[in-house]
């Protein structure tokens, strides 16, 4: 079964949009994040809940929420790779919108874009592992 490139583009874009939308909707609350009503969301990482150690991506959601509220310094403190991934996701969203409008080749079928996104993911993972080891 080969999934159509356009369907993949739109599916991924929906996930990215949901992620960025949630980051804008949630509010920072000290070192935690909370719902706009005030309820604290607590830890979202099940890896940390089970093993009691940070995973390489721990702090990414807090970093996204801080970024969505314009607090770059806190975003970098929560996860140094947060702004990079946030920017990559935003660029992906814009690129998918442009390819849909222009009816051009789907993003997931463009080797250069896929390579760039995978490189950014690997960089984020490496930074996360470094952060995890250091802590």
């Amino acid at each position: 079964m080969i999934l159509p490139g356009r369907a993949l583009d739109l599916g991924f874009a929906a996930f990215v949009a949901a992620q960025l939308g949630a980051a804008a909707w949630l509010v920072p609350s000290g070192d935690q994040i909370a719902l706009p009503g005030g309820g604290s969301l607590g830890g979202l990482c099940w890896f940390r809940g089970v093993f009691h150690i940070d995973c390489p991506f721990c702090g990414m959601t807090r970093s996204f929420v801080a970024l969505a509220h314009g607090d770059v310094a806190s975003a970098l403190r929560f996860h140094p790779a947060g702004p990079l991934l946030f920017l990559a996701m935003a660029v992906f969203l814009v690129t998918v919108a442009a390819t849909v409008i222009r009816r051009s080749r789907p993003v997931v079928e463009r080797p250069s874009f896929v390579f760039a996104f995978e490189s950014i993911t690997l960089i984020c993972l490496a930074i996360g592992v470094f952060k995890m080891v250091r802590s």
Partner: protein
Amino acid sequence: MEAARTLKANLKLDGKPCGWCQVALRLGDDAAVCNACEKEHHSRCWEGNAGCSTAGCVSAPLRRLDAPPAPQYAAPQGAPYVNPPGYGAPQGLPYGSAPAYGAPQGYGGPQGYGGPQGYGAAPPPPPGYMNCPNCRIAIMVGSPVCPACRAITSPDGIYHGPKVNAPGAVASLVCALIGLVFCGIVLGPVAISRANAAKRAMASDPTLGGEGLATAGLVIGIIDLVLFVLVMIYKVSTIR
């Protein structure tokens, strides 16, 4: 599994050129979309040509070995043989370029391979070589796949040679498995796109394998995303 999806041309297919006749598909036309390479065709063109128009696609028709001879082509002496259009070979590929496959001395030499014989009947290959059934260039006897057009050369049309994993098949599974442990929202899509690219490569090149790895990467990548969403829903629903 069917090689093509037959459907009435919808808005997505409207205006796209048929791979065989190049006439644009119109709304409501009977269309056939290749399952391997997603190329659009008229249903009648697909059936009339017995497959996909994309060169090298697994659903492309095999060339008839008993093709009727074309008009005599009187190439000047010494001119290199050039595959005629319509034989599926790369246009303008000189026959003399075949020595890259290790042809014997004298092959493609000053005498050339064309000229008096004409190109309707394929030129006799040198000893140890045979003509590709698809593009008709000379390939080594025993080659399971034509190196130029990737067509399968075995009489039964099934590739029997060794396979290597398609690029991305293993990576997709690794990403998907890591995504099960953490950050499935990022690694899941990477796994899915990698698996899809590997499956596309496998569909167009019979020497590539790793179908199981790619399928596992695809399925686990989807599970990554679903798990992430479920964990999020659970967390939000249990807020104190």
